[in-house]
C-alpha cells in the first residue's frame, strides 16, 4: 500500500494509487446476476479526469462542496475522485433517505453541485425540498435514457464526452491536511442536522490505522453493499482498497439471494455489513445446518468444535477452509473477514461465525471519529468486546462509576474538525481535544473495550441508523394532548446494554382527558406514518407540567431525571 504519512490530501494519495496500480482491476459493478462494468485503475483515472475537467470548465473552484445521492456504483467513486482532484469538498448523502430529507441535508451543507443517478432523480427533482437547496447550481445525472426528463439537470456521461474532445488535462488542486475533505451526516433529519467536518488528515490517519490490522492488497475483492455514503463503506470500500490496489465489487441490489451469490461469483475477500445483515446470514446458515440428516449433523458439529478449539488463540483460515469446506465454498472460499459495524452486534452472532472459521471484525466507531475507534484484532477473538483502540487512537473512560463504567472519550488525529455551522454543539462534543462519544464503556484487564449503553438521548437501529428522539417528535405535532416529547427509554432508565433500544412517547394529557382507545389510536395513526425504524414502542404518562426554560424550551435532562424515579416496567404503556 501507499505510505499515507507522506500525503497531505486524499486527492494526492488516490492520484498516486491510480498510477501505481494502473493495470489492476479497481472496480466491478454487478446488478443481480449481470456484470455491468469492470474497470482498471487506468480506466477509472481516465473517466475521473474527464469529469474533473468538465467540472473545472463549469467553474468548480477549490473548496466547492459537491453532494452525492447515488446507490453503490462505479460512478459514485469516479465522481468522488474527480471532486477531490479538483480540491472540492464531498458531501455524501444516504440514497435511502426520502427526497425531502436529502434536500434538507444538501441545503444544510450549502453544496453547489449535486451528482445523482436517473433512477433517483424523478422523485428527487419533484420533491418540494428542492426549493430549499438554492445553492445548488449544477446537477449531474448518471444513466439518463435518451428521452429521459432531466428536469434541469445535465447528463453525467455528456460531461465526459465533452471534455474528451479537448485534450487539456484538468488541474490537480492540492489541499492541506487540515482542510475539510467531506461533510458526513451522522444522523437523519427533522431536527438539528449533524454535519461532521472530516479533514483529509482524519481520513489518511484512519486509513493507515485500519489497514495496519486489516490490510488490502492487489487481488483482494471487497464487496460493497453498505451505502458508500456511510463512513464505513467510504473507508473500507473506497479509500482503503484504492490506496492498496485492491478491487471493489459493487452490487446494485441488496436482495439476499444475489448478495450470497456474489461471494461465490467474485471470490470475495472482505465485506462490510450491519448487524441486521449478519443476523440474516446466520439464519440462512442455521436453517441449512438444521436440515442436515442426524448423522451428518453430528459429524458437522464435531468439525465445528474442532475448528473452534484450533482457532482459539487466532484465526487459521487455511485450516478452517479445509475443515468446513462446504461452508466456506458457499461464500466463495476466499472470505477472510466480515467487517461489521454501524450498530452493536450481539456476541452470540459473532461467535457463531468465528466458530465456523469466518472471523468477524466487529468494532466501535462514530462518524465524528472518521469511522473506527476500536476494532477486534482477533488475537484472540473476543465476541464480548468491541476490540482494542486502533493504533494512534487514545481512548479513556471518563468519570467511571464503582464498576469502572464511564463515558468513552477519544483523542486522535481521526477526530473531526467539528459540526458544520454548529459551534455550540461542537464545543459540547469536543472538549480540550477529547471527543465525548456519549457512549458508556469499560476496559477489561486485557485492554478490550466493552460497551454498556449510552448516556445520550438516542438509539441506533440494527441497520446502523442513528435516531435522535427530537427528530421524531414532528410526527406527533398535532396530537391533541397538553404536551409531549420523545425519549430513548434507555436514556431514562439505563440498561447497560446496546441492544433492544426503543423510543417512548412521554405525554401529559389535557385536563379531564383519559388514557383510552381513542387516544391510543390517535397516537398509533401518527406513529404508523413514521418510518418503521423511527416508531415509538410505548407511552409514558406524566401528570406534571414539563420543565421548560422561560423561552418554553424543554429542559429535557430535568424531565428525564423526574421520569427516572418511575418504575420502568410499569411506566411504559404498550401502544
Amino acid at each position, binding site marked *: 500500500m501507499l505510505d499515507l504519512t507522506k500525503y497531505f490530501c486524499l486527492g494526492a494519495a488516490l492520484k498516486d494509487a491510480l498510477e501505481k496500480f494502473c493495470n489492476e482491476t479497481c472496480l466491478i459493478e454487478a446488478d443481480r446476476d449481470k456484470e455491468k462494468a469492470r474497470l482498471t485503475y487506468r480506466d477509472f483515472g481516465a473517466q475521473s479526469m474527464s469529469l474533473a475537467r468538465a467540472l473545472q470548465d463549469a467553474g468548480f473552484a477549490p473548496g466547492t462542496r459537491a453532494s452525492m445521492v447515488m*446507490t453503490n456504483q462505479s460512478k459514485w467513486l469516479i465522481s468522488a475522485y474527480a471532486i477531490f482532484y479538483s480540491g472540492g469538498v464531498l458531501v455524501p448523502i444516504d*440514497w435511502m433517505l426520502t427526497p425531502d430529507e436529502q434536500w434538507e441535508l444538501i441545503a444544510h451543507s450549502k453544496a453547489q453541485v449535486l451528482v445523482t443517478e436517473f433512477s433517483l432523480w424523478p422523485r428527487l427533482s419533484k420533491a418540494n425540498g428542492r426549493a430549499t437547496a438554492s445553492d445548488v447550481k449544477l446537477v449531474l445525472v448518471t444513466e439518463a435514457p435518451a428521452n429521459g426528463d432531466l428536469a434541469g439537470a445535465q447528463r453525467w456521461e455528456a460531461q465526459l464526452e465533452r471534455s474528451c474532445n479537448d485534450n487539456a488535462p484538468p488541474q490537480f488542486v492540492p489541499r492541506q491536511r487540515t482542510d475539510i475533505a467531506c461533510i458526513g451526516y451522522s444522523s437523519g433529519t427533522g431536527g438539528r442536522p449533524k454535519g461532521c467536518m472530516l479533514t483529509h488528515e482524519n481520513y489518511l490517519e484512519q486509513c493507515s490505522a485500519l489497514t495496519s490490522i486489516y490490510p488490502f492488497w492487489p487481488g483482494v475483492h471487497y464487496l460493497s453493499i453498505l451505502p458508500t455514503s456511510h463512513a464505513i463503506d467510504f473507508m473500507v470500500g473506497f479509500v482503503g482498497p484504492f490506496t492498496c490496489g485492491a478491487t471493489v465489487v459493487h452490487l*446494485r441490489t441488496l*436482495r439476499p439471494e444475489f448478495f450470497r451469490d456474489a461471494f461465490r461469483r467474485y471470490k470475495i475477500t472482505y465485506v462490510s455489513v450491519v448487524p441486521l445483515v449478519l443476523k*440474516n446470514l446466520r439464519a440462512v446458515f442455521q436453517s441449512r445446518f438444521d436440515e442436515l440428516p442426524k448423522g451428518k449433523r453430528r459429524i458437522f458439529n464435531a468439525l465445528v468444535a474442532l475448528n473452534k478449539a484450533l482457532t482459539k488463540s487466532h484465526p487459521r483460515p487455511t485450516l478452517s477452509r479445509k475443515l468446513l469446506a462446504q461452508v466456506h465454498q458457499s461464500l466463495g472460499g476466499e472470505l477472510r473477514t466480515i467487517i461489521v459495524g454501524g450498530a452493536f452486534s450481539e456476541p452470540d452472532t459473532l461467535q457463531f461465525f468465528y466458530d465456523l472459521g469466518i472471523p468477524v471484525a466487529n468494532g466501535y466507531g462514530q462518524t465524528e471519529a472518521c469511522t473506527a475507534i476500536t476494532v477486534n484484532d482477533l488475537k484472540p477473538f473476543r465476541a464480548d468486546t468491541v476490540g482494542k483502540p486502533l493504533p494512534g487512537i487514545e481512548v479513556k473512560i471518563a468519570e467511571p462509576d464503582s464498576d469502572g463504567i464511564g463515558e468513552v472519550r477519544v483523542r486522535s488525529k481521526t477526530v473531526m474538525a467539528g459540526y458544520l455551522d454548529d459551534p455550540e454543539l461542537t464545543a459540547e462534543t469536543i472538549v480540550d481535544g477529547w471527543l465525548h462519544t456519549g457512549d458508556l464503556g469499560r476496559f477489561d484487564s486485557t485492554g478490550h473495550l466493552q460497551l454498556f449503553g449510552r448516556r445520550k438521548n438516542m438509539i441506533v437501529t440494527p441497520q446502523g441508523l442513528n435516531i435522535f428522539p427530537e427528530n421524531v417528535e414532528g410526527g406527533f405535532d398535532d396530537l391533541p394532548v397538553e404536551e409531549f416529547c420523545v425519549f430513548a427509554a434507555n436514556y431514562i432508565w439505563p440498561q447497560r446494554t446496546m441492544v433492544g433500544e426503543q423510543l417512548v412517547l412521554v405525554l401529559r394529557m389535557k385536563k379531564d382527558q383519559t388514557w383510552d382507545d381513542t387516544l391510543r389510536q390517535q397516537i398509533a395513526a401518527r406513529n404508523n406514518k413514521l*418510518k418503521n425504524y423511527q416508531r415509538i414502542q410505548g407511552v409514558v404518562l406524566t401528570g406534571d407540567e414539563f420543565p421548560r426554560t422561560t423561552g418554553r424550551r424543554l429542559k429535557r435532562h430535568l424531565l428525564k431525571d423526574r421520569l427516572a424515579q418511575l418504575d420502568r416496567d410499569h411506566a411504559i404503556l404498550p401502544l
Partner: protein
Amino acid sequence: MPTLENTTQEVLTLAEQHFKLAPGTLSPSDDFFKKLGIDSLQTLELLSRLENHFNIELPDYEVQGVSDFKTLAERIQSRL
C-alpha cells in the same frame, strides 16, 4: 393486463403464503413491518417471490421507503 385491484389481491395472497398466514389475514393498507414484525431484509425476500410471480424486475430503489401492500402493488402494476 390485470387491474390494480387484482394485482393487490395477488400480492396479499402471495405474502400470506410466504409468511404462512391464513388467507384473508392481510389487507391492502397493512404496514408489513408492523403487521408481520419483519425487517427490511425479509421484505426483500418477499419481493423476490413477487418478482418471480409477476415476471418483472423491481429495482431496490423502486421499493425504497414502501411499507404497505397497496403502494407495493402500485409499484408492481406500473411495471406490468
